């Protein structure tokens, strides 16, 4: 693997993990009884931009290296399901994760201190943030399963 693909993979992992930390932080501050709007906005923004970075670096690695050099190795190895099931699921869920994060980020940007927020909106966002955090964790675990299946 060339240095550029190694760097793309490392960036994808590190930014993805930091996005996971930011998303967990967002979940925790959002569901607290007394909400800190500044921290909510910061963690929502961090989740969005970190996911975007992970998306771009992961996408580059996937398009120019994984498809050409890794996929065939996994498919001919002892764990072809790592591509057929895990990667197929991961690449589709991964595509919409930054959009999910963008929805959350732009929704919380409208929050103002002292202004009443609709309970329906709060509940909807809480469900969305929970889903996003769970999906990011599953993406990370999926990434380990895919990497472990590369047996030349």
């Amino acid at each position, binding site marked *: *693997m060339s240095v550029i693909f*190694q760097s793309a*993979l*490392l960036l994808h*992992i*590190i930014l993805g*993990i930091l996005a*996971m*930390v930011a998303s*967990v932080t967002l*979940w*925790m501050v959002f*569901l*607290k*009884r007394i909400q800190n709007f500044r921290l909510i906005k910061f963690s929502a923004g961090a989740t969005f931009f970190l996911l975007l970075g992970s998306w771009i670096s992961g996408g580059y690695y996937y398009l120019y290296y994984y498809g050409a050099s890794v996929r065939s190795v996994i498919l001919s190895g002892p*764990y072809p399901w790592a591509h057929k099931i895990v990667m197929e699921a991961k690449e589709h869920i991964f595509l919409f994760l930054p959009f999910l994060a963008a929805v959350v980020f732009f929704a919380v940007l409208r929050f103002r201190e002292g202004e009443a927020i609709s309970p329906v909106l709060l509940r909807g966002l809480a469900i969305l943030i929970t889903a996003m955090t769970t999906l990011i*964790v599953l993406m*990370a*675990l999926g990434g*380990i*399963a895919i*990497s*472990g*299946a*590369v*047996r*030349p």
Partner: protein
Amino acid sequence: MDFYTWLVFLHIVGTVLGVGGATFAEIFIVKAMRDGIVNPEETDYLRSIYAVLRIGFFLTIISGFSFLYVYRITGNEELLYQPKLWAKLTVIVAIAVNAMLIHIRAIPLSVGSAVALVSWYTAMFLGVWRTLPFGYFEIVLTYAVIVVAAIPILTFIRKQFGVKI
């Protein structure tokens, strides 16, 4: 120091802060709850300990995933399918979920503290025992049994120290 040694160093520091933080959280909860109320000074101590725990968790996660990256690029991919690794990941997810539930007060602090204590020691134990001869489900089942058993055991120990529950 090379990159791998840095990772080992960071991982050990993270684990030390996590295990130490979980241990001191339990000790301070026992001390704070002897009179049945947690005063502002005790709250401040507990906040500091939970901040240390969060730093430990963050270091463990970042260094842990960096190890996985190193295994991938150095051709040691078979290490990523070790049952012990997946059991450790399960425990790490349990630590995170437990911390989240404590934070939003969805579970009592006494229960959450017991789960955190057992989970951090389990994670350390799994890291230290290099040749653990058990499968994923055996490890996770044992961990779950210990967690469930630890809650009444720690409640009993807290009562012995005069904690009013």
